[in-house]
């Protein structure tokens, strides 16, 4: 037997934690056909049943206003989905039931997973677990995703309910007498007023007459009355009916109030701890200072602990390089192949891999901030500043994610409702310093600024943030068609981050980084090696390689910004494939096996000093690397999200221009000071 179960719930309801409890890190991430909404799937075998699990995007409703909601709705309505598990945060039951009522109208078997019951108990609230299923007509299973409790019962209920499209026994005690001809109270949990029910009947009759019998006619009729764009497009002949959307929403909430009144006891008890903590963390002065401290702490951990672990990685790659060299000498392998393997592959990819500890710690910190509930507060803290830039405070979240990796940050921009907002966020987000650029800062700041390395590297994050803010402000200033921005964001309760969720999040990012290092960077490194070791005279003469000849032709453009060195120009061109490649290219260009090791750094520093590349040049290189054209993966993502080649190219040129201007100013002012 096989079954497909879709997991759906409001954002922050613990849906992903529950999904991860079942699937572990064994996930398949793809996109829904034709759209950029992520589809996360997993597969398990339970009680001899092959269970296919699909984690649907978090949603508050199932209207057709957002892409995520359309995708979710269409998946549930499809034959692919057998049962829906509606994950509900028991501590916010009142708000969560709106989505539940919409799900019930889709006509698929629904099982409710009542999560976070421990929080409800802790607050002193109680939920009547007998009355709730009676009022909804679906099984309600209390679970704790964090403690992994109730998981087997939930799956058992889901398997048991496959094919049961009718609700379980409904027991309502309404205080009004319906004059509607049909006894819907035995068929549906959500029964509307006679006025709406009469309209539903009228539309269903018209639907059958014009389009023949349809599956789930009640749902179609309701959506017609809600003026749902997608449904109206499918059934244009039914568009003449006056919308009753406000009435439908109000009646749903009236029913929710009825449910809450009957099942939720001691509702008035709220989470005092979250409110107390928020008084400090979202304070107008202390809140902002705390945010800066948190970010500084994150980067301190990334550098101190990350560098300690990194030294072991360097040791391993150093030994590997020596072993391969020794082996090739014994086997009398020619110098070109030895150089390709040791200097190209091990030197290039190895340099990138050694930064893995820094990146892991950075993502670990971001995952903790996200899962603890703090990340959502950042939108509130930043709203004042962001609204001055013509952006919603919520826009700060994709920008903040840009500190981790620009690719997911660009993807996160889709959470903004306004398209103009999305494009502007996509334009400035690449200025936020991603972890790939961290490798450049670590190397060059440690080589040229020794004891001040951490401050210099941290300054890059501040410069990136400032450039993003100034660029947004200028765009806002010159934008003649200003749009108002609307911050509406849920603030989840503070909680201890779930280690399993954090671990899977970090693993996913680290795996992505390694795969990137193993594919894009590997290919780029080999191309760079060929470009720098092969020239008109064949292998070996780097000074006369094709790369050197090309770079020498355009180096003069880089002189005014302090980067008039052909090797640096080659490294910057190579960095477009992935920013980490700037480091691995420098390693290859200067013949250093492991640029991140102490010996490698000393050798690279000596080579750079020999060509007249000093600390000001190093600072300029870091600034230019921070701001110039984003990596190929980011450009592809911008194209996918904006669906515009023109916008993508414009963004590339815009960033190049900003990078050139800022680095020019830094270099020229630096020359006056030094």
């Amino acid at each position, binding site marked *: 037997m096989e079954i497909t179960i879709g997991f759906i719930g409001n954002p922050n309801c613990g849906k992903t934690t529950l999904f991860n409890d079942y699937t572990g890190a064994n996930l398949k991430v793809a996109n829904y056909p034709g759209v950029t909404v992520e589809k996360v799937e997993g597969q398990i075998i339970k009680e001899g049943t092959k269970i296919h699990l699909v984690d649907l995007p978090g949603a*508050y409703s199932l209207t057709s*206003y957002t892409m995520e909601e359309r995708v979710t709705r269409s998946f549930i309505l499809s034959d692919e989905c057998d049962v829906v598990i509606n994950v509900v945060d028991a501590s916010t039951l009142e*708000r969560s039931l709106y989505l539940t009522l919409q799900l019930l109208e889709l006509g698929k078997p629904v099982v409710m997973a009542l999560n976070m019951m421990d929080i409800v108990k802790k607050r002193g609230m109680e939920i009547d677990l007998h009355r709730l299923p009676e009022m909804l007509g679906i099984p309600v299973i209390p679970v704790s995703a964090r403690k992994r409790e109730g998981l087997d019962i939930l799956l058992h209920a889901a398997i048991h309910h496959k094919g049961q499209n009718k609700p379980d026994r409904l027991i309502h005690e309404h205080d009004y007498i319906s004059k509607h001809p049909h006894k819907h109270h035995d068929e549906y949990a959500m029964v509307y007023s006679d006025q709406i029910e009469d309209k539903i009947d009228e539309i269903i009759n018209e639907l059958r007459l014009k389009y023949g019998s349809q599956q789930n006619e009640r749902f179609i009729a309701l959506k017609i009355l809600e003026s749902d764009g997608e449904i109206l497009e499918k059934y244009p002949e039914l568009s003449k009916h006056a919308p009753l959307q406000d009435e439908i*929403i109000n009646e749903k909430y009236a029913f929710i109030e009825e449910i809450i009144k009957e099942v939720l006891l001691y509702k008035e008890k709220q989470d005092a701890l979250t409110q107390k903590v928020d008084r400090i963390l979202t304070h107008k002065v202390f809140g902002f200072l705390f945010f800066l401290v948190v970010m500084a702490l994150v980067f301190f951990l990334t550098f101190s602990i990350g560098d300690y672990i990194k030294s072991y990685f360097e040791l391993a790659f150093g030994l590997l390089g020596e072993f391969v060299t020794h082996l090739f000498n014994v086997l009398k392998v020619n110098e070109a192949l030895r150089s390709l393997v040791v200097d190209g592959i091990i030197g290039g990819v190895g340099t990138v891999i050694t930064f893995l500890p820094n990146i892991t710690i950075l993502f670990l910190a971001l995952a903790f901030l996200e899962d603890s509930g703090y990340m959502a507060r950042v939108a*509130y803290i930043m709203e004042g500043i962001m609204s001055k830039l013509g952006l919603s405070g919520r826009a700060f979240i994709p920008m903040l994610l840009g500190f981790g990796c620009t690719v997911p940050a660009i993807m996160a921009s889709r959470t903004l409702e306004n398209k103009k907002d999305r494009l502007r966020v996509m334009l400035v987000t690449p200025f936020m310093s991603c972890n790939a650029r961290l490798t450049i800062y670590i190397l060059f700041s440690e080589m040229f600024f020794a004891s001040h390395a951490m401050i210099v590297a941290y300054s890059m994050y501040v410069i990136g943030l400032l450039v993003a803010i100034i660029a947004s402000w200028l765009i806002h200033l010159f934008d003649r068609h200003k749009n108002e*921005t*609307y*911050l*509406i964001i849920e603030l989840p*309760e503070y909680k201890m981050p779930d280690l399993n969720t954090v671990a899977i999040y970090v693993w996913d990012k680290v795996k992505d980084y390694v795969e990137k290092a193993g594919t894009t960077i590997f290919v780029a490194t080999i191309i760079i090696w060929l470009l720098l070791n092969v020239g008109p005279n064949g292998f070996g003469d780097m000074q006369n390689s094709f790369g050197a000849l090309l770079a020498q032709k355009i180096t003069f453009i880089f002189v005014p910004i302090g980067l008039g060195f052909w090797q640096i120009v080659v490294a910057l061109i190579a960095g477009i494939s992935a920013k980490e490649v700037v480091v691995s290219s420098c390693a290859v260009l200067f013949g250093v096996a492991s640029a991140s090791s102490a010996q490698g750094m000393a050798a690279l520093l000596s080579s750079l000093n020999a060509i007249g590349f000093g600390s000001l040049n190093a600072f300029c290189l870091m600034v230019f690397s921070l701001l110039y054209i984003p990596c190929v993966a980011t450009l592809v993502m911008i194209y996918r999200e904006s669906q515009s080649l023109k916008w993508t190219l414009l963004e590339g040129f815009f960033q190049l221009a900003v990078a050139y201007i800022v680095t020019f100013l830094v270099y020229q002012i630096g020359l006056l000071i030094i």
Partner: protein
Amino acid sequence: MTLDQGVLHKKYEVLKIDLPLENRRYLEALGMTVKSEIEILNRKGKGILMVRFRGSSFALGYNVTKNIQVRELA
């Protein structure tokens, strides 16, 4: 009065939401409907608020709060 003029820790009843349709629908999906109860938990600037309704907390920007008409609850 509008919500941005609301006082910290006071409760209000929503009378009208004058926002573009998409934002109004989004707020309604979250539970902010006419006649619903809303409590101000925190505020900053002109009217950027942290509020609670239907058992959940939300951050609302000034452009949102200035367009929600409310009346104070006793």
